[in-house]
């Protein structure tokens, strides 16, 4: 049967889309893409990497049609560089921040963060220069007035996934991670967590852009990011819907 599938020409309307996606959104994106392919018959190739690396590749001619970044800064930089029309940029997901440990059964609150002062325990955050989640974590620490005292206990991951990895392996007892890394279907997968209120930090906007104003299948993919089925995936994976 697959021989027939190979020999037969593809349906006239099927198009190819190459989507570059920030690693932290790879899992949910695979589900979004599966639904998109089912609904439209288009074929999607997913490329994952860090937002900075994908951005640099795009600036140097990488053949991507759509970029799903982990922040809003790099998509804005592509607009500023004239590679993307301002109307072809939109927020596809809002990240939620969680204060997390792998130790189960703790009831964490903002007071647990204040209590970390003067203890030997390390606190993992994503690098605030690179990752919006890291920037948000610093804002939370500053709001609690403990950033300066906790500074020496901080260890930084290059991105929020690495912050999670430090806590998951026990090398740091606590960390600020993306809620999407520890929640599934609204329930905590392991350990204990405190969900930081959205109003405590700048919203972690994850923006997408359609590159080169490509129409057809790439534009369909870009538009699909706002579909109801995509919103359902976002909620299951612990993201806020824009």
């Amino acid at each position: 049967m697959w021989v027939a599938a190979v020999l037969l020409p593809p349906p006239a309307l099927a198009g190819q889309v190459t989507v570059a996606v920030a690693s932290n959104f790879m899992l949910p994106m695979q589900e979004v893409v599966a639904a998109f392919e089912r609904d439209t018959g288009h074929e999607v190739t997913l490329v994952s990497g860090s937002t900075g690396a994908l951005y640099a590749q795009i600036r140097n001619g990488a053949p991507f049609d759509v970029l799903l970044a982990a922040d809003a800064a790099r998509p804005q930089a592509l607009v500023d560089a004239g590679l993307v029309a301002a109307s072809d940029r939109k927020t596809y997901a809002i990240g939620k921040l969680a204060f997390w440990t792998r130790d189960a059964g703790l009831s964490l609150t903002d007071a647990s963060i204040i209590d970390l002062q003067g203890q030997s325990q390390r606190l993992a955050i994503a690098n605030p220069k690179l990752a919006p989640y890291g920037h948000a974590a610093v804002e939370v620490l500053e709001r609690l007035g403990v950033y300066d005292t906790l500074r020496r206990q901080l260890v930084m991951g290059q991105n929020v996934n690495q912050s999670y990895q430090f806590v998951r392996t026990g090398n740091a007892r606590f960390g600020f991670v993306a809620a999407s890394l520890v929640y599934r279907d609204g329930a905590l997968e392991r350990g204990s967590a405190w969900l930081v209120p959205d109003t405590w930090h700048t919203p972690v906007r994850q923006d997408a852009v359609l590159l080169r104003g490509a129409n057809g299948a790439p534009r369909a993919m870009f538009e699909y990011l706002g579909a109801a089925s995509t919103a359902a995936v976002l909620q299951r994976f612990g993201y806020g819907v824009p």
Partner: protein
Amino acid sequence: MLGANDLAALWLTARLALVTTACLLVIGIPIAWWLAHTGSRWRAPIAALVAMPLVLPPTVIGFYLLLWLGPDGLVGGLTTAAGWGTLPFTFAGLVVASVIYSLPFVVQPIENAFRAMGRAPLETAATLGAGPWDRFFTVALPLSMPGVVTAAVLGFAHTVGEFGVVLMIGGNIPGVTQVASVRVYEQVESLDYLGAHALSLTLVGFSFLALLALYLLQGARGASAFAREG
């Protein structure tokens, strides 16, 4: 051009490479000696183990180090029990990682030098009444010095060029674990290409000079040996 954090990263990198090279020579010379002279059936497995960092991706080494040195790991459990805490995110942790990562670059040139020397000089020294330690320090080591110098330069340079392992277990703490290569990565990721250029060009210059010194040294030795023979 180079800011305070860049200089801190370069200084840290230099300290890390120096300490690592010293540790590597202390550990590497006995291993190289054993590998060069043993007839044990353990020779091949040990040689393979020493050479593995040449083949393994740094991400694999970094991943396992994070687990082994962490509180659940064998080494992490021991260091915690000894009251030292765990090694990731510390300078000592980077030294341990760098020693493992650069070991083959130090062991192999020294082992080759020991082999090239052969047994004759040692046997001559023995007939003249030199004890084993005397033979090693006054005959074997001086005769193998070019190999040792090559090993030291390669171990130092390879540690400077280390990235993946440090990225996995370092925690990117300025002045403690943020080495030059990790800082360049951070600058590129945050689109600070100008800063990345300054530090990158410094590293390009350093690596060229280090290797140039190595080849000039080898060339000089080769030429003088040739002149003596002539």
